[in-house]
């Protein structure tokens, strides 16, 4: 077949007008022919234009929640399967943090919707997650202390009434964090993902950006593991400080009284 014939095939392929065999032959040819591949890409983009040309219609509002809950649930299931196959040594490092991130994300998303209905769905999710959690506990008795801490975090997350996200200050990193703030009890849980692991000489330091224009206030230091995950739980946050947001810097081990490093993550409360 000549290039011209492949291009014609590409035009048909884009709107589903070829047989499986023709489609395979075309893909094969396109692997080695940039001009036909380019034509095929254009035709597919143009075909998608038929969908874009339609007046858009918003799906049902609750469909978004149900999608996100399905995905979070499947993600939890996936990570449980993946972890079950890891060896016992790796388990201690990984099980709790990744379970936590997924659980935290479910709560984050569910709380985002706010309505009573969603809260009910959230509670069901919670029950499910707690069942999962119990399974993890049975499986890994040695995790005792971590689980204790996890329970306390779950409490905070459950009563969180302010949710926001910390994003990377530069686009060179995918790091982010979800913040669950329970303003009533002056406590918060912050779940970090994709931060670089810190070395022995440095600690990550969390800062409260004050709403009264005064300098940022340290909220403590934390370490990030090789997976890029980390969590911080804050208790007894100051009552008299208006919290405008949070920020993260990398500082000498133990932290400083005022930030000296570049802001790596930040977000508004």
């Amino acid at each position, binding site marked *: 077949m000549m290039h011209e014939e492949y291009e014609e095939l590409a035009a*048909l392929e884009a*709107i589903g*007008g070829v047989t499986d065999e023709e489609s395979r032959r075309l893909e094969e040819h396109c692997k080695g022919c940039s001009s036909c591949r380019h034509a095929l890409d254009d035709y597919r983009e143009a*075909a998608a234009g038929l*969908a874009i040309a339609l007046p858009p*219609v918003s799906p049902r509002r609750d*469909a978004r929640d149900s999608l996100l809950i399905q995905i979070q649930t499947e993600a939890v299931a996936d990570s449980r399967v993946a972890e079950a196959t890891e060896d016992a040594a790796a388990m201690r490092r990984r099980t709790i943090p990744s379970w936590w991130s997924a659980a935290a*994300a479910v709560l984050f998303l569910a709380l985002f919707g706010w309505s009573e209905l969603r809260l009910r769905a959230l509670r069901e999710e919670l029950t499910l997650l707690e069942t999962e959690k119990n399974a993890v506990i049975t499986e890994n008795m040695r995790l005792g202390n971590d689980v204790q801490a996890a329970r306390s975090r779950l409490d905070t997350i459950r009563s969180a009434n302010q949710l926001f996200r910390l*994003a990377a200050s530069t686009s060179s990193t995918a790091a982010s964090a*979800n913040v669950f703030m329970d303003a009533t009890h002056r406590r918060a849980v912050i779940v970090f993902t994709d931060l670089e692991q810190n070395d022995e000489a440095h600690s990550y330091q969390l800062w409260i950006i004050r709403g009264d224009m005064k300098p940022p206030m340290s909220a403590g230091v934390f370490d990030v593991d090789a997976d890029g995950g980390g969590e911080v739980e804050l208790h007894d946050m100051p009552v008299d400080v208006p919290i405008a947001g949070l920020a993260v810097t990398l500082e000498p081990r133990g932290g400083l009284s005022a930030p000296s490093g570049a802001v790596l993550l930040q977000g508004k409360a």
Partner: protein
Amino acid sequence: MTNDATPRNLLPAIAAGDTVAVADLYDRHGSVLYALLLKILGDRPDAQEVLQESFVQAWRRAADFDPRRGSETAWLVSIARNRAIDRLRSRNLRAIREEEAGREIPIDARSVDTDGGAERQAILGELRERMQAALAELPEPQRSVLELAYFQGLSQSEIATELGEPLGTVKTRTQLAMKKLRERLKDLGWFDDARRV
């Protein structure tokens, strides 16, 4: 959740395990995909279900997305369309489709999600207008073979039967229509802009 820092393509982040980015993906593309699914399936519960399946598939296959080969929108549209056509074929569809042909789908949600960011929505609106203009320039028989293939999932021979015309004629007409569309869209700078949303 969308802000200035939100990347142009979300699929790489999703492939890297950011399940929360699926929410942004949904806000960006949900209404285009849902409109397509309603058009193909003509039935809200089905469209809603396939919409969800499509996003789950996108989440699972996010690593397959190659931005060099096309836009995120086109990639998602293709997933949704394939699923919808499969659904259509698995229904005992012919009777239903004939019954429903020409039926207008009532649109109760007038407001379009604007969460994708105002700038993005503006580009999308412009793309829509240019696509509609390019389609309007095609002669009616050419436009109609495209629509039969794309929205009803008919093969070239099924279209030939439907129209009572030789297969060769139908193929030539479809190819001509796609070729014209490609050229016109190229003139309109459509391909570059499509990759910006």
